[in-house]
């Protein structure tokens, strides 16, 4: 067993930290949250130059051939700095799904462009029911002489408004798991994208598909065979979100610890008060367990081992612990951090958004219950 990053992993972490510390101030984060697009081309291109986009993809398709664990390190640093933009949508939701479902031609074409930062992807999954299960997918893809016609409404599609390609999960049969994946051009006729006002600082969209014609060659994988792929994407995305929460936890903890070492009340540093110390101790306990639960799940994925149970245990634990950690940070910082100008509110918003994404704690606990044979 080894609970520390190895040399190579430490270098990835340090270089990501260095880049984001320079390029991703919280002023920039706030500006991008207000900005319609949500990122700048300059920021995006720099990440691509650093090789982040292609990091988890094989070298044959233009990637760096690194592991999901390495990707999780980058995501952790992005969470630490609240990095904006469609990186998660492109690499985790779009890229990893294409890598698993696509044929060689699709993988090479899509991922080689993705890897150099020239193609933004996202994944259209949820619908009106708000369910992550296969039964929640009711957008129909009808086969009509050499092409499919897609009709229906997708919700909470992250970064669809800036995406080049939307991977769409659509129903191609009546059995619960008869789901197929399609590569759809975001500019295709009949695709209507509306940005949804949302409190989390990320960019969630409604995407209406009105008889959108998709050539058969844009089918990713077998007709009706997409559910296992989607399920893996869900779990990897859950662990990826947990990695962001891991980083965000470190920052929320730092805010509190720095503050209690300088804030004086009753003539003493408030960090000397046991009530405050105990809150801080609990925050560190959350932070450490968050980090290990996430790392274990990411390691399982990276090693090619079965990861279903670890991924769900990770998302359940991290979702709740991160929220509690941020709440303790707010409590310790007092009124100061209730102010809009304090950066903790950025983390507070993202904590809840991350908790809800890709299955909340109850959702994943149910999955753990299933794996326990209950």
């Amino acid at each position, binding site marked *: 067993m080894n609970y520390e990053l190895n040399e190579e992993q430490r270098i990835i972490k340090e270089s990501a930290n260095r880049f984001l510390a320079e390029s991703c101030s919280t002023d920039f984060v706030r500006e991008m949250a207000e900005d319609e697009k949500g990122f700048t081309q300059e920021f995006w291109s720099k990440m691509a130059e650093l090789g982040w986009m292609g990091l988890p993809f094989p070298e044959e398709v233009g990637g760096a051939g690194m592991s999901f664990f390495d990707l999780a390190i980058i995501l952790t640093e992005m969470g630490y700095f609240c990095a904006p933009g469609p990186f998660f949508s492109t690499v985790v939701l779009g890229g990893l799904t294409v890598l698993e479902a696509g044929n060689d031609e699709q993988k090479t074409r899509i991922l080689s462009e993705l890897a150099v930062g020239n193609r933004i992807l996202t994944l259209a999954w949820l619908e009106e029911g708000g369910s992550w299960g296969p039964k929640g997918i009711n957008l129909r893809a009808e086969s009509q002489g050499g092409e499919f016609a897609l009709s229906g409404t997708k919700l909470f599609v992250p970064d669809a408004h800036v995406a080049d390609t939307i991977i769409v999960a659509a129903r191609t049969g009546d059995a619960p798991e008869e789901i197929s994946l399609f590569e759809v051009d975001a500019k295709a006729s009949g695709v209507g994208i509306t940005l949804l006002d949302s409190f989390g600082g990320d960019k969630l969209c409604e995407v209406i598909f009105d008889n959108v014609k998709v050539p058969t060659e844009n089918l990713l994988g077998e007709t009706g065979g997409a559910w296992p792929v989607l399920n893996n994407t869900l779990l990897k995305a859950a662990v990826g979100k947990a990695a962001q929460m891991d980083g965000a936890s470190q920052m929320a903890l730092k805010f509190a610890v720095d503050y209690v*070492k300088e804030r004086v009340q009753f003539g003493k540093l408030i960090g000397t008060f046991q009530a405050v*110390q105990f809150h801080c101790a609990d925050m560190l306990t959350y932070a450490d367990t968050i980090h290990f639960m996430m790392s274990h799940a990411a390691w399982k994925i990276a090693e090619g081992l079965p990861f279903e149970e670890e991924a769900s245990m990770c998302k359940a634990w991290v979702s709740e612990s991160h929220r509690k950690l941020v709440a303790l940070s707010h409590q310790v910082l007092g009124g100061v951090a209730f102010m809009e100008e304090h950066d903790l509110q950025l983390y507070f918003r993202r904590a809840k958004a991350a908790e809800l994404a890709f299955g909340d704690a109850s959702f994943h606990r149910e999955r753990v219950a299933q794996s326990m044979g209950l």
Partner: protein
Amino acid sequence: MDFSFSAEEQELLKEVRSFLKTETSEALFTECGELGHIYGGKEGRKFIKKFASHGWLTPNWPVEYGGLGTSATLAFAIREEMAYVGTPLVFVAAHMAGPTIMHFGSQEMKDKWLLPIARGEVEFCLGYTEPQAGSDLAALSIRAVDKGDYFQLNGQKTFNTHAHVADYHWLGTITDPDAKKYRGMSLMIVDLKSPGIDIRPMVTMAGWQTNELFYDDVVVPKENLVGDLNAGFFYVMHALDYERMFPLATYGSLVDEVAEYARTKIVDGEPLARNPIVRQKLAQMKIELAANRHLYYRLAHMLDHGQVPNYQASMQKLFATEVAQRIANTGMEVLGMFSQLTTDSKWAALAGKTEKFYRTSVVETIYAGTSEVQRGIIALRGLELPRK
């Protein structure tokens, strides 16, 4: 990072598991339950001597002292296996006194004690707490006076749990009453059969026994002083950093048993395990056990990489014991009305285990450093919060 055991570790664990399956008995488990999983009972000694003959009681000790020279990770893993099965689990000699002797004892002391400890032949009783010195260990008052050839001891100890089954007292005693706090305490090994020691039982609400001890002109040979005179507080703190580890697998086995109960118990015409609330609660326990396991093996990792666990040991103790209480409570909730019935009661479920765990779990967050002491250590040492 790497979350797997090495091939050698897996191989040895397989042997340990198979031994634990074939060599344990109902009599052993019963005694263990009655003693609160401390080592020293008749059945426990019989079993552990056989177990220790493989080097498994102290696997990470050097071979010359009766160990196998393995990783700390393996030692931690073996303890998890023992906890899951329900063998004796709290070893003062092998896990607390032994390592301190190895670090700070004289060569004579090492030669005399380490092999018998590794073989499971002797058990010690922790002798720290006194009526006025609980969390505040520096407030000890038991006194050892230097009489030239020997020390003469007078005073009182309380909550010394192993005393009625152990052979020796691992005693913290004041040797310089004029010294500043922390600088006048020494550690000594005292034969519990020494004339002048009176051991009186204190029965806990969990059913098992702890003890108070009275020392009246007790004679302790000079050679039984551990390390340097007046350095005891330092040794105790050092030992806590090295030896504070809480395998939670005893409670883990309860989660498995309660899950099995939920799968088979029919309520309102369907298995209890179909109930979404039951599913959520049991899954949460499984998740918390997994989180604890990481804090536990991080300690082993640190030891194996030449680091001294510090706040990390406190965090694992704190987390494990709070999880233990939640598991015990969850067990009571899932079994409902049946959870209250004691072992021999008609209609008892899981042989009355849940109420027993529920009672025992109360002390987990109190002994060996309360949760408040641990949180203080985490804040002060882990986050370097100000003391003044």
